[in-house]
């Protein structure tokens, strides 16, 4: 086994520039890594830079008006040679996409071409990367559809996207993503557009494929429930930076950043008494301040103190692999048992 992670992202930053407008820093120095065959989650609310991160890694950001910096070292084929996904020439990047890197998008209907039958869309990638053509490609496509749990794949091949159900469409997209057994699959909110029952099925399918094929999965979502059952490691994003990263159990057992703890506190629980109010995080993402001035979460934080504004907080790492970016972390093993002065369970402005 070669040493080093499959994908190591260092200081990824994406800035959108527009004439006569202030630059928008959507991603502000994200670092994380992903081992061969592992499942890593990127969690955060709308506007925290999740999707931009995934598009940047795939090289799919528009060519103009965007500045990308940092490095994303990827080992194609799992070999020792590393390439930087952010600076790779377009042509090589295009060859990697679909074969080594794959992506599953949020909205399965708009991600499929409405006027091209499913079969042709699936065979397209087989022709492109595996050189299979004609009847062979068609039967390979049918196999793929069967593999992702689409019944009667032979008939589905000639159907159009609008003739499939939502879950079916997402399955078809997943089939296209796994068609060439990519090393790394990025799933950008793959279950958001689906209803809860289908969500569970799609997550189950992703898990199954990842385990069987040894594909590494970068799961991007706003839903902690999704990552809880799936990810080995979780990174929590806030305002374009990772504020906390930890192995799954650590994160859920001992959330250290007030934001993470707030997110966990705001999840409805079945075993909670019906009278217990949910504890929301007050404010909105728009309340963030510039990381350069201090912790961007400070305006919404219950642990806020003066020294939170003393420049960007450093990432602190513990030996367990737990890392967090906070001056006044939540100390305690579980959100319920935290010290009274560090969190205010009922302190939300309801």
């Amino acid at each position, binding site marked *: 086994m070669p040493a080093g992670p499959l994908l190591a992202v260092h200081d990824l930053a994406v800035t959108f520039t527009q004439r006569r407008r202030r630059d928008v820093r959507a991603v502000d120095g994200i670092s994380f890594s992903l081992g061969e065959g592992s499942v890593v989650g990127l969690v955060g609310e709308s506007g925290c830079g999740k999707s931009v991160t995934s598009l940047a890694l795939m090289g799919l950001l528009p060519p103009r008006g965007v500045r990308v910096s940092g490095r994303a070292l990827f080992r194609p084929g799992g070999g020792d040679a590393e390439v930087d996904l952010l600076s790779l020439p377009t042509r090589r990047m295009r060859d990697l996409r679909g074969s080594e890197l794959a992506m599953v*998008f949020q909205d399965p209907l708009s991600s499929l*071409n409405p006027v091209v039958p499913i079969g042709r869309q699936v065979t397209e990638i087989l022709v*492109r990367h595996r050189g299979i053509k004609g009847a062979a490609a068609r039967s390979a496509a049918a196999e793929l559809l069967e593999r992702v749990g689409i019944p009667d794949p032979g008939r589905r091949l000639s159907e159009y996207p609008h003739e499939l159900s939502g879950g079916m469409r997402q399955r078809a997209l997943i089939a296209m993503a796994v068609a060439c057994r990519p090393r790394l699959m990025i799933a950008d909110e793959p279950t958001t557009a689906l209803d809860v029952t289908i969500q569970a099925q799609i997550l189950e399918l992703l898990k199954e494929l990842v385990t069987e094929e040894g594909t590494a999965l970068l799961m991007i979502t706003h839903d902690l429930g999704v990552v809880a059952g799936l990810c080995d490691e979780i990174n929590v994003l806030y305002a374009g930076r990772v504020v906390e990263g930890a192995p799954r159990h650590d994160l859920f057992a001992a959330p250290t950043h007030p934001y993470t703890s707030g997110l966990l506190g705001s999840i409805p629980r079945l075993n909670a008494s019906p009278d217990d109010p949910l504890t929301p995080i007050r404010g909105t993402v728009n309340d963030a301040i510039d990381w350069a001035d201090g912790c961007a979460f400070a305006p919404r934080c219950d642990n806020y103190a003066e020294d939170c504004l003393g420049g960007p907080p450093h990432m602190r790492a513990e030996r367990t692999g737990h890392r967090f970016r906070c001056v006044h972390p939540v100390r305690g093993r579980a959100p319920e048992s935290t010290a009274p002065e560090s969190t205010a369970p009922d302190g939300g402005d309801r």
Partner: protein
Amino acid sequence: MAARTQRIDRLAELTAARREEAEGRGVWREAFARMSRNPMAITGAAVVALFIVVAVLGDLIAPYGPTEQNWGDEVFPNRNVFVGPRAENWLGLDNLGRDQFSRMVIGARQTLMVGVVAAGLGFTAGALLGGVSGAAYALGGTAGRRVDAVLMRVVDMMLALPSLLLAVSIAALLGQGLVTVMIAVGTAQVPIFARLLRGAMIAQGSRDYVIAARALGARRRRIALVHILPNSMGPILVQLTLSLATAIIDAAALSYLGLGNPDPSVPEWGTMLADAQRFLSGAPQLAVYPALAIIVTALGFTLMGEALRESLDPRLRK
């Protein structure tokens, strides 16, 4: 009892509609179905169909040859003696004693040919220009935008000239003739198609499925041809029907100005209109027939195009 039957009929209708919906018909089939319920579309299609039948089967329909001067001794333009509609000549005689009805029927062919070829020419060239431009803009990055900018400035220049003026100068350049008329009228149509297709392709270029196709490593040419182009054809196909109307009017106008087919033995509505001008006081009907024919035909195409556009536009659906 009657109310009950009515209710059941309505129920059957609704279930049928549901079933059709569930079966998932294509956009075009659905648009066609919607058009067939639109009286405007039916009127337009009827006119267009009649026009095409007359143009194609003209020889069989026309009772006499268009150049036969069978009644030359009955018409004396100098003395203001003309022959109006009568049993053997439905629309009367023209100034040379030829059967006006036969000339109108045979004239339809010229008009249709010029219209179809010119609109087709404009469509092809415009789609080529707009397609390259749109694909370059949507997928070509910075270099692509430059290509697009250059092509679009060319189109802008064509658009800046009034189409008839452009057609006249081309006709003047290439000399009088049928081919000239076709090229001239077609050229005037190019910028419209180019602009429309480019706009549609750029709009499609940022759609999710294009990004998804790129995420699968699809090459740009393939994305442009398989994904973007087929989804961008709607507007220019509608424009094609509308352009047929404009082309017919433009072609008639060029013939009227004397830039059309110089062969006097081949009747053409525009030329007939120009000829009739000299006898406007004595025989106004000679001008009215071709003028009406031009108007009605153009109206037919316009109605059809308009209905097609409406039935494809989800915002205008009732």
